[in-house]
C-alpha cells in the first residue's frame, strides 16, 4: 500500500514529477501534492461534479481517476484555465448573473459549461440544463447558472 510509482505529467502547463501511491486519486494529488485547492472533492462517487478537471482536453471526474493513471497526461484545473483566460466569458457571466453562491461547485460547473460550449457554441436552454445535469449545486437552483452559460455563449460568439 505504501509503495509508490513515479509519474511525470503536465499540470497547467508545468511539468510535474512525483512518486505517488497507487491509491492516490487525482483530486487529492492536485490538492495535497500540488496545492491546487481550487478543485474540490465532495461526493467521492462521480455523482456531483465538484472535482471536475480537464485531462488531455476532456473533462473528467477527479475523484474517479488515480494519479498513477496520468503518467504523460496533460491536466488543466480551474487555476490554470483561469490564468489562460479560457474561462473568461463564463466567469464574467457567472459573476454578473450571480450564478455562484457558496462557490464549492463553481469550478466544476465552469469546466463542464466550457466543455459544452466547445462542442455546441450556441446551445438551447434545455441543452445547457442537460449538459450540467451531473453537476450538483445546492445553492442557486440552477436557473442563474443556465442564464450565465447562455450569456457566455453569446459573448464567446464575439471572439475574433
Amino acid at each position, binding site marked *: *500500500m*505504501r509503495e509508490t510509482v513515479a509519474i511525470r505529467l503536465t499540470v497547467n502547463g508545468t511539468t510535474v514529477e512525483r512518486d505517488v501511491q497507487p*491509491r492516490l486519486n487525482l483530486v*487529492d494529488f492536485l*490538492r*495535497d501534492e500540488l*496545492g*491546487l*485547492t*481550487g*478543485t*474540490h472533492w*465532495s*461526493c*467521492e*462517487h*462521480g*455523482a*456531483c461534479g*465538484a472535482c471536475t478537471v480537464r485531462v488531455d482536453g476532456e473533462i473528467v471526474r477527479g475523484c474517479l481517476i488515480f494519479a498513477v493513471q496520468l503518467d504523460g497526461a496533460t491536466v488543466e*484545473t*480551474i*487555476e490554470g484555465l*483561469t490564468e489562460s483566460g479560457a474561462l473568461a466569458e463564463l*466567469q464574467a457571466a*457567472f*459573476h*454578473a*448573473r*450571480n450564478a*455562484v*453562491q*457558496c*462557490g*464549492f*461547485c*463553481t*469550478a466544476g460547473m*465552469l469546466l463542464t459549461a466550457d466543455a459544452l460550449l466547445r462542442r455546441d457554441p450556441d446551445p438551447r*436552454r434545455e441543452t*445547457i*440544463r*442537460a449538459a*450540467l*445535469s*451531473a*453537476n*450538483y*449545486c*445546492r*445553492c*442557486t*437552483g*440552477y*436557473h*442563474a*447558472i*443556465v442564464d450565465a452559460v447562455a450569456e457566455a455563449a453569446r459573448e464567446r460568439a464575439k471572439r475574433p
Partner: protein
Amino acid sequence: MTGPLSSLDRPVSYIGKSVPRPNAKRLLAGRGRYVDDVRLPRLAHAAFLRCPYAHARLASLDVAAAVRAPGVIRVVTAKDLAGRYTPWVGTLTHFKGMKSAPQHPLVVERATWQGEPVVAVVAESRALAEDAVAQIDVAWEELPPLTDMHAALEPGAAPLHAELGDNLCFTRTIDAGAVDAAFAAADCVVEESYSFARHTGVCLEPRSILADFDSAAGSLTVHYSSQAPHMMKEIFARHFRLPESAVRVVCNDVGGSYGIKIHVYPDEMATVAIALLLGRPVKFIADRLESFVSDIHAREHRITARMALAKDGTIAALAIDDVTGIGPYSTYPRTSVVEGNQVIGLAGSSYRCRNYRAQLRVAFQTKPPTTQYRAVGHPIATAVTEALIDRAAGALGLDPAELRRHNLIPDDAYPWTTASGLKFEKLSQQAALEKLLALMDYDGLRREQAALRQRGVHRGIGLACFVELTNPGPAFYGVGGAPISSQDGCTIRLDPGGSVTCATGVTEQGQGTETMVAQIVASTLGLALNQVRVVTGDTERTPYGGGTWASRGCGIGGEAALQGALALKANILALAGAMLQAEPVALDLAGGWVVDRVGGNRRIGLDEVGRAAYFRGDTLPPGVQPELVATRHYMPRQYPFAFTNGVQACYLELDVETGFIKLLKHWVVEDCGRVVNPLLVEEQIRGGVVQGIGGALFEECIYDDRGQLLNGTLADYLVPMAGEMPDIMVEHVETPTAESMLGAKGAGEAGTGGAPAAVMNAVNDALAPFKVRITAQPISPRRVLAALGKA
C-alpha cells in the same frame, strides 16, 4: 420629492440595485479558502470509527493494532477524553417540560444511532487514519432499535434513555377559539394524513473543522465551516473550560450550510478535544458517507389535519396533530423541538381563521438527530395547510385561487395576531396573490390545462400562500439559556485614503452578506462599492453577533451596518466641519467627498479628511479629536420576529404511465420588506425553491427497520439537478418593516418554505381526474403509480 434625500434614497445609492458580489470573483477563479484548503505546520488528520448499529452497547474495544499502524499519532477513545469536557444537553428552559440526555464527543458505553462516532484516530494523513480505523477491534452487543416514532410513543415503549422515563422529548398543544363548535357547525369538513420523509442538507462542502491549540500561548483557534462563529466560540470555551479570551473561531469560505452548520456535533467536539490533548492542529473533514449518517437530518413528520369550512369557502376551523421524530438526542444548543413548534405555530397563519387546535409530540428514536434546517417547520406547516385548502376547494367546487383570496388576512387588517399567537406587523398577502396570478396568467393556464386534459395530457397547477418567520429576537433562543445572540454589530473605520473597512457579526456562506453590507455602507457614506472592504466570520475581528441563519443577515446585520455608517458619517462630518469651519449639518458625503448639503459643492475629499486625522493632527483645530471609527448594534425589540409573506405556484406535467413528473415552471411573489439587492434576493428565493422541490419530489434518508441507512451516497440519495429543475420567475412586493430604518425583513428561506406545498398541490391537481391524492413526500414515481393503482 423636496428637501434632502433620506439616507436610503440618496442620489447615488446602491440600495435596491442588482450589484454583483465582489467576493464571488475569488470563488470563480478557484481561489476560495475553505477549511480543507487551510494547511498548517504539524497538521494532523482525524478519522472516526462509527457505530454500525442503530442501537448497541460497546462490549469490547481493542485499539492496540491501530496504535501501531503506520503514521498514527494517537488513537483516542471516550476514556481518553473523560474529564476534559463538559457534556452538553440540548434543552432550553422556555420549552416547558422538554427533556434530553447528555451528549459526549465519543460513545462512552452505548451508541444510539448508526454513525455515532466511537473512536478517533489521528494520523499524518486522512488515508493513514482511515487505514488505522480499520485495525480497531470492536465488539458490539446489539440492542433493539427504535426507528418508528409512533412506536416510540406507545405506552410501555422502552425508553431510549432510561433516566428520561419515556421517549417524549417535548409536547405542546394550542387550543384557540371554539374549535369543536366550528367543526360541528361546518358545511364541509376535510381531513387528511400527511407524511414528510427525513432528509438532509447535503452541503457540497462537508462539515469541516481544523482545531489548532497552541499550548504555549494557551489559545485555541478553530478554522470552521460554520454559520455562527461567536456562538461556537462561546460553546468551545464553555465545554472545554477555557477562558473566553483564549478561543478564536475563524470562518472563511463556507461551502453551503442551510442550517446544517450551526449545531454542535460530537465528531467536531472530539476534534477540538483532541487538538487540546495533543497541542497541535487537528483537521476533520466529514466524507460523504459520514455526512449522510452524522449531519443533522430534518423533517420526518406524520400529521393528521382537519379543516372546517362554510359553504362560501370561509375557513371556520383548523386542527392538526403533528408527530415528529428527532433521533436519540435533542441537538445543542438550539434544541430539536423548534421545527415541530414552528409547524404548529405557523399552520393556517396566512388566513383569518380564529379557531385553531394543534398538538405536537416530539419523539426520540435511534436515527441521527434531526433539527433546524432551512425554513425550519415552514415547509410542513405550509404543505399541510395548503393541501387542505385545495382539498376543500375540490369538495366545495370552488377555484383554489378564489378560496385563498376569500380567506387571506386582508392587507389592511394589520397588525394581526394569529390564533396561535404570532404577531404580524404588516403583510401583503392579497397583493402578492394577485400579482402572482397575473404573473403566471392563472386563468390562461387553467384553460390550457383543461384543453390538454382532453388530449390525455395531465398537467397540474399548485398554489401555496405562506408566511415566513425571520429576524428572531431574544425570545427565540436567548431567553431559554442558549448562547445565541439575536443582536449583531457592525464596526466601520475610515482609512486614511478615504475608503472604509467594515466588520460585521453576520456571516457569509454565499448569500451575499458582504455585498449587502457594502451596499448599505457605501450608499450611506457616499462611496463606491469597491471602497468598502467587509470582514466577516472571525470572532477576533468582528463585533459580537449571532451570524447568518433564520433569514436574519440583512434584517439585523443590514440595519447594524446602516446605523454604524450613519454614526461614522456624523463623526466624519463633525471633523470636516471643524476643518472647514462649517456646521456639520450643512455638510454631506457624496462621491468620496465632503460636500455642501445644499447644492452639493465639493468641499474636501475623504482622503484629505483621513490624512489630516491620522497623519497631520497638527493641522486640526485645538481640542478636536477625530473618531473615524464607529460601531452600532441592532436587535429587534418591538416584535419577537419579523414576518415575511409570499405565494408560490408550480406548473407540472405528470406521466401517468411512468409516474414521472416534469416541472414546467415555477413562480414566486414574495415580500421580504425592503429589497437591498434584487439579484441576490432572487437567487436566494430560487435556490430555496429548488431545495424545497428536493424535499417534495426526491430527497429521503431511507432507513430499514433496524435503523440502517440504505442510501448513503449521492448516487443513491437523489438531489435536484439542473436537468429536472424548471425556470423560476420571481417578483416582489415591498412592505418594509417600520421597526428598523432599513426595513429589510429577510429572504433566505421563503423559497424552501413554500415550494413543497406548491409542488404537492400541483401533483394532486394533475391527479384530480383520477380521484386520487398523494399526501406523502417525497412524491416519487413509485408513489404516483401506487396512487394510480399501477404499482
